């Protein structure tokens, strides 16, 4: 069984400016000793900072790389997702790198941050990006 830990900066509003902002640096001392197989982290939002922060310190574990923002109506271009993953490959092997959403699409039942049609398209974009990445690096 794989055990993951998910961290985000809030997912209750579509107004990005009311959500938290900052990279993972200040959390590293807490994260490093955890007996966790995978850190599932937001990276589709610039509020999460640079991949180097975790790449340099947590690459002995897997990374669930957040590549789409669950709160936006626009579906991320496949090439944008591929580029995010390629940047993470500077620190992670392809088998350590998972691709996922930044957070859920409806953490609070009465506060879904998206609609099903857009959520589905975002999943399709992630899968398309994974196919391209496997053909290049798999």
């Amino acid at each position, binding site marked *: 069984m794989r055990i*993951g830990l998910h961290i985000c900066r809030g997912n209750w509003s579509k107004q990005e400016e009311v959500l938290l902002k900052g990279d993972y640096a200040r959390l590293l001392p807490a994260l490093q000793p955890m007996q966790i197989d995978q850190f599932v982290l937001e990276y589709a939002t610039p509020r999460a900072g640079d991949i180097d922060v975790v790449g340099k310190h947590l690459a002995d574990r897997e990374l669930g790389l957040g590549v789409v923002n669950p709160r936006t109506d626009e579906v991320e271009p496949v090439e944008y997702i591929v580029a995010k993953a390629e940047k993470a490959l500077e620190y992670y092997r392809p088998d350590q790198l998972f691709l996922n959403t930044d957070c859920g*699409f*409806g953490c609070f*039942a009465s506060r879904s941050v998206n609609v099903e049609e857009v959520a*589905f398209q975002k999943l399709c974009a992630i899968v398309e990006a994974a196919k391209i990445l496997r053909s290049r690096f798999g």
Partner: protein
Amino acid sequence: MATNNTFLTTQVGSWPRSKTMLKALRGYQKGTVSRNEFNNVANDEIRRTVELQEKAGLDILVDGEHRRESFYAFITDKVAGTALMSLADMLDYVEDKAAFEEMLRTMDMPASAVKNPTCVGKLSRKESLALGDLRFMRNLTSKPVKITLPGPYLLTRSMWVTALTRKVYRNHKKMADDVVKILREELIDLRDAGCEFVQFDEPVLTEVVMSEECERRTFM
């Protein structure tokens, strides 16, 4: 086709709720919809969510958390010693009502969306938190399944409401011992049932280091 083990794709957990699902959830909470009826609605929603993930081609699937009030408040259904409290209930007990209301307003969180799993008694599992979810998923897909659980820090921070919890536990740490015990039991059950992936959600970790007022009570 060979199984991929590179760039595995998945999602973090929850799926947008339909109007039907929300209506069933509210009815179940009020007691006007039976648990059986509620589960039948949720099962249909989960079935559709799984079909969509398979259609998209994801490698590891989630159930969309359709049965859950929120990713952590749902535990009041499963854990003895808890009460699902609305904001109105909470306001009677938070130390600074005005600040709490102001926080909700500035963070764009409507009062109606807030429900807290408050600790009001000795905590123990009445039933598994997610074993039923895993078993239902097994009937729907042969793909690996990810189960999400609230992390111990998130639960400890949200469940403690001094005016109600101090009657039962001397301090946060004493309550946290029982929270951790519950999560350990759950993790072992999920492992023994063959769950491929368990994800603990700890959004509060960022709040503590990134929020300017880390002592304030928020809705999570």
